[in-house]
């Protein structure tokens, strides 16, 4: 029994670290209304940059996080330029960057597809050592502190003039352009912020699992969408923006918890992607189908008298 509890603890810790990525996905998917597929590549980018800096350059684990953040923003800028300046549709622009990042990531890791950190010091092992807690607990502490900080920073940013203009770009591009905002710059900024967070999350997960892998970002966008949907189901009635941002991280923790449970129940790891995809497809389609079903039920041939 305690084995399961430990596994659950690990899952929640992992979920919170991935939650930083989901915050990034939230910016593009929910605020800018762009499905940005760069994410799969920029998540791995963060891991690769972080592992390479720590292993080959003796980098400080915290400095490695900032380096990953910057690298992710650069990746977001590439997608942003492809989309806004060259007017390639957002989905395709994201795919192009994602594909190219696969090669870039391999170059960063000097051609190796996997870089283990082994006994090297990370932020998480440092916290675990100095507070005398398990790795999973340390991950959770680090994750909660960073996620809380980011929620605060994002809450502040999206309340500023610039942040409001970015949100308005997602809601109504025509309107905010007529009010004097360069919507291309807003999209570029949003994509940079988003991929910066995604890459930071990749670096955190790398430090948590003690290795970086060229494939670690595969399916990240789908996990992000699943976490956003779970967060909205759990806390959808809260309209405060800080609550919405928090719900995204909580959704991610719950997603990884569900994942750990279904794996415990005997689902094969290899089937996990199929499970997640089906889950997201259902979560996105059920509200639509329910609406249609209700509209059909509400129909009556004679109608009711208005009272």
């Amino acid at each position: 029994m305690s084995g399961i509890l430990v596994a659950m603890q690990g899952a929640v810790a992992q979920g919170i670290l991935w939650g930083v990525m989901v915050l990034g996905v939230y910016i593009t998917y929910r605020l800018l209304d762009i499905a940005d597929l760069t994410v799969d590549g920029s998540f791995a980018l963060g891991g690769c940059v972080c592992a390479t800096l720590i292993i080959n350059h003796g980098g400080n684990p915290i400095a490695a996080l900032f380096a990953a953040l910057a690298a992710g923003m650069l990746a977001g800028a590439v997608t942003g330029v492809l989309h806004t300046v060259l007017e390639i549709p957002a989905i395709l622009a994201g795919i192009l960057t994602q594909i190219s990042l696969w090669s870039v990531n391999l170059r960063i890791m000097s051609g190796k597809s996997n870089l283990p950190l082994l006994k090297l010091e990370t932020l998480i092992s440092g916290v675990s050592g100095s507070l005398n807690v398990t790795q999973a607990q340390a991950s959770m502490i680090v994750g909660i502190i960073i996620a809380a900080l980011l929620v605060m920073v994002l809450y502040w940013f999206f309340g500023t003039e610039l942040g409001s203009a970015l949100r308005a770009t997602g809601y109504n591009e025509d309107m905010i352009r007529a009010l004097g905002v360069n919507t291309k710059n807003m999209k570029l900024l949003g994509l940079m912020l988003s991929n910066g967070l995604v890459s930071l999350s990749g670096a955190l997960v790398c430090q948590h699992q003690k290795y970086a892998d060229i494939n670690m970002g595969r399916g990240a966008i789908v996990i992000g969408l699943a976490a956003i949907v779970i967060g909205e189901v759990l806390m959808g009635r809260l309209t405060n923006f800080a609550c919405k941002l928090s719900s995204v991280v909580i959704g991610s923790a719950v997603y990884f918890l569900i994942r750990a449970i279904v794996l415990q129940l005997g689902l094969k790891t290899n089937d996990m992607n199929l499970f997640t995809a089906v889950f997201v497809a259902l979560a996105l389609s059920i509200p639509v189908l329910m609406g249609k079903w209700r509209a059909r039920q509400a129909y009556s041939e004679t109608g009711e008298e208005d009272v």
Partner: protein
Amino acid sequence: MLTITNVRKTFNKGTVNEKKALCGISLHLCPGDFVTVIGGNGAGKSTMLNMIAGVYPIDSGKIEIDGVNISREPEHKRAKYIGRVFQDPMRGTAAGMEIQENLALALRRGQKRGLSWGIKPNEKDFYREALTRLDLGLQTRMTSKVGLLSGGQRQALTLLMATLEKPKLLLLDEHTAALDPKTARKVLELTDEIIRERELTALMVTHNMKDAIQYGNRLIMMHEGRIIYDVAGEEKKKLQVEDLLKKFEEASGEEFANDRMMLAK
């Protein structure tokens, strides 16, 4: 104020779909002019407004506001001078944002947006006052999402937003066409009131000839990308719908067969 000199625009040049939208338009507006624009479908009314606003680049000619040549400025830079209300009530406001957030975005039209707070506390009284003057009860719903408002309320709000920070030029592109007659009347009266009170310079496209005669101090009629009739002052006040119809036949040399304009008599 606004000076347009020989502006031309052809869409899909060199293809079978070539459409000459503006064929050398020249127009000068004095400060305080409230000009109504009429004409059949495809006459170039909306295209003219879109060219002024910078939605598409012009092929040739010059557009100036207060002597500043804005012909090649992008749309978002021209916003500094121009307030706009669109035909579609959904286009002028952000449905997912609060009424006060929309107003705060509008107050900063054309200004640099930085990292200071999006709505300053002292602005809220100003918004409440401005909303009270709309007389739609919106002043008590400042934190409601705009998506909850009706089309008429949203259009009135867009009008308020376009004029919150006084624009050098106000562009109204059939902004009452999507509303029911009663609401359209109310929004139109509000428009007239705001333009008079704030002494704005405005261009208003309409399909309703009566409105075109009743409102504003000057009227222009367009046909096939040209301004075919331009009347102001006393002469405009004496205009009848019949005169406009006759004028149209005269200038264009064809029967006036536009259903929408006939019905709008």
